[in-house]
């Protein structure tokens, strides 16, 4: 992805959080947004 592009992540399963965190780390100039309907990200 290129600078200024937008990544949207839908959901709070075990994949969503790690994807968001690593995407931002690897591509700090990409806008990362997480949308989730649950109140929390579960850890287990």
């Amino acid at each position, binding site marked *: 992805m290129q600078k200024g592009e937008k990544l949207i992540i839908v*959901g709070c399963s075990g994949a969503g*959080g790690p*994807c968001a965190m690593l995407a931002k780390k690897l591509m*700090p100039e990409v806008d990362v947004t997480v949308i989730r309907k649950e109140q929390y*990200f579960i*850890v287990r």
Partner: protein
Amino acid sequence: MVAGLAAENAIVVPDQNLKNAGIEVIGGEVVRVDASGRKVTLADGQALAYDKLFLATGASPLVPPIEGKELEGVLTLRGLPDACRIRDYFSEKKPEKIVFIGAGFITLEVASLMAMTAKEKMDITIVELLDRPLPLMLDMDMAALVKAHLEEKGIKVMTGEKVEKIVGKAGIVSAVALASGQELPADMVFMNIGTRPNVDLAKEIGLEMGRFGIKVNAYQETSDPHILAGGDCVEKFHLITGKPVPGQLRGPAVIQGRLAAKRLAGYAIPFPGVLNAGGCQFFERVATSTGLTEEEAAKEGFETVSATVDSRSKHGMIPGVQPWRIKLVFDKRSQKLIGGQIVAHAVASAKAIDTVNALIWGGKTISDLTTHMCACNPDISSEPSLEPISIAAELALQKLRS
């Protein structure tokens, strides 16, 4: 958390962690995706444009269409809200007769925690359709150790029993009726018979679907070039058989989430497939497994050779030494390791399953494993002469010759 041993906020990732990293977090439900216009719409009408979309919609507990499933006191567990409901029901209603439907790892963990933390003695029964507890993880010989320990702790385990319906009085659960005609009194029923992927949104987008979820390639890419997906909502493939499998475990979900991020950043690291490695702790036992059981391997057409070895957590002279048992399953034709199971008294011993996992992944054979050498220390491992992986391989070697 269900047993009151951990607080709600202790088992979740705080939003602040994400926000601190510069990630925007929006609480809301995506109700529509315009794939051609690359835009998502939330339930409140808010619309957001995207260049790439990652679907991680997870899975939900599978609730079969049996009579009585909607009664008060019939509960499932998947996420934090479910755990809160169980904890609250448990503390408010103080159930004394609990029936668990399904003998998977969540059942064993919750049942044992409830029994261990209850102030009053509870009557706990586990009903399983198949012939053993943890039927997707263990062969019958290993599952027998699990069943024996549960029964030793006062849990009644009924295998080979089908639930006909859940019975209620005034809208509240009162019993579980079995197909065999037996009726089990119950003031709480816990259902744990599997999960189904949350794929409504993906279907609405028109993404290609597999038998077990959203179809993705090895790089987590869906049939839409701008949409990736990962975790419980996608179909995976088995590392050994290459066949599609559900694989709804957290380990693969985390790896798939990270792989998708790497793919978007320009890396091309393929997902290797799943071995469905997992484990659970119940009372004073830990069971772990990976790869294929002997029974699964036979169903997949493998002729197997297996070996079971008893070992110990420390050198025999060290106080606190505890036993554990490992079973390894090999493909007789290629002699490759294809599965492993452990039932142990100690968590550390059960973690040897990760070694088994790596050995399967590396394609190691019986001969390779006979030279497997571990880090040994009297306090943290068995004596080198009792290292069970190499001994199991030697047993398998002897079986092949005979």
